[in-house]
């Protein structure tokens, strides 16, 4: 346990309560391995961030790779292009991306918006797996992808969007006119687990993001059955400005704190 169990400042005004809020304690996992231990083969897994190091739950991904379960469906955005192109990683670091699950043979499918870079030299792990017939790749326009994820968390089973009309992504989808423009019906996209990344969590599970590390993380937190978050720091309740809470504690099931000074971004 990395969180201090002393009474928080929020207890000042309580008179008749003897047990300190039980929920936040239960949400904190002791290790990345513990946090992902119950992910079964065949699971669908959202992986947060945008693509690149910032906002990517890199340690959770590495724990999932270590776990070794297979037949996974990965849901991400820009996916698997950092290793070969350096996309979104500082120059001096060796990039880690979702391609690792295709390299290891754990993933059989990815739903994402940007699975391959412009170049094929060298081939990304995802394109390699796809060419060898080992991976299904569903390419979704980014705005549609994030809106489908958001819809799943927001209780919206389906919505209409103008994006993709007249393109291959429209094939097989309902078309409908509103005010003279044609739209596609798109459906909510949920998952068994969301692995996300935030800067800070408080002990209750409220999350604070920084800069462009938000991206897909806040929506994914709302959309999966189980949301697991990797943070740089866990703070006491009250340690996050109520104006800066980017994900409400209600959405968060598990929190793991990185080692201080972890060299990975």
């Amino acid at each position, binding site marked *: 346990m990395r969180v201090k169990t002393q009474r928080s400042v929020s207890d000042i005004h309580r008179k008749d309560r003897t047990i300190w809020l039980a*929920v936040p304690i239960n949400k904190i996992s002791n290790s990345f391995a513990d946090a992902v231990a119950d992910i079964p083969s065949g699971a669908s897994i959202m992986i947060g961030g945008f693509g690149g190091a910032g906002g990517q739950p890199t340690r959770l991904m590495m724990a999932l790779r270590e776990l070794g379960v297979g037949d996974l469906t990965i849901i991400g955005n820009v996916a698997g292009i950092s290793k070969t192109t350096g996309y979104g990683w500082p120059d001096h670091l060796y990039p880690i991306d979702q391609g690792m699950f295709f390299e290891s043979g754990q993933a059989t499918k990815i739903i994402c918006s940007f699975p391959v870079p412009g170049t094929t030299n060298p081939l990304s792990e995802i394109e390699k797996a796809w060419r060898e017939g080992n991976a299904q790749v569903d390419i979704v326009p980014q705005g549609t992808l994030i809106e489908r994820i958001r819809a799943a968390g927001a209780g919206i089973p389906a919505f209409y969007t103008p994006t993709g009309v007249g393109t291959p992504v429209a094939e097989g989808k309902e078309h409908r006119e509103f005010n003279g423009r044609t739209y596609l019906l798109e459906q909510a996209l949920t998952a068994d687990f969301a692995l996300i990344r935030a800067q800070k969590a408080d002990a*209750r599970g409220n999350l604070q993001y920084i800069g462009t590390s938000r991206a897909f993380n806040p929506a994914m937190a709302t959309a999966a059955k189980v949301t697991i978050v990797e943070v740089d720091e866990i703070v006491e309740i009250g340690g996050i400005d*109520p104006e800066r809470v980017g994900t409400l504690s209600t959405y968060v099931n598990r929190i793991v704190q990185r080692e201080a000074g972890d060299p990975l971004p």
Partner: protein
Amino acid sequence: MNVTPAIVGNDPAPRLNRAAIAKRAARDLVDGSTVNLGIGIPALCADFLPNGVELLYHAENGILGFKELSAPGEGDPNLMDAGGKFPKLVPGMAFFDSVESFNLIRGGHIDVTVLGALQVSRNGDLANWMIPKRGIGSIGGAMDLAANAKRVVIAMEHTARGDITKIVNECTFPLTAPGCVDEIITDIAVIKIDRENGRMILRETAPGWSFADVQARTEVTLDTVGEVGLMA
């Protein structure tokens, strides 16, 4: 309109007051739950939580984690709850806009909502937003909460003025949501709704009230499962 008055005599014992209804409703709230309390009796639940239970209160206007109200005259208009009252700023709160607030509700992330009612039917239909003869009403967040919270508890007086039954075979008032109510807690009884079988099960009665006394004030024919307990 077809409001059937129940066949009643004199009350066998005093009915619980509003605070006691709220206290009974509060007893079932589970530590750590995300909870939305409607205005009126439901809002009083916050004053009667069992020892060791802390809830995350959500209000539609975009706040999670509030606790007690500010002293009169000390409220901040920018820190309001959905009832138009002004809670204190406490650690762990979160502020957000109405889009996010209703994502939380519509998305099924509210563990329990406690609401008031004008009528509840045997299959759990809820009517609580308009009295037909007035012709105008207010929905607010009630339809979203009733249709989408994981658990819907009604805390209300058992009958309307004139001992008109509010627990009815079919709602005659406009619905808030069909088939949504899990439990009703009133000033004389606790009734669980078995929605799958369209049954109402009397679980508890107020002190001094018998099954028959409650039944006489309830249009729906009540069932029991095992012993009927005492509200406390």
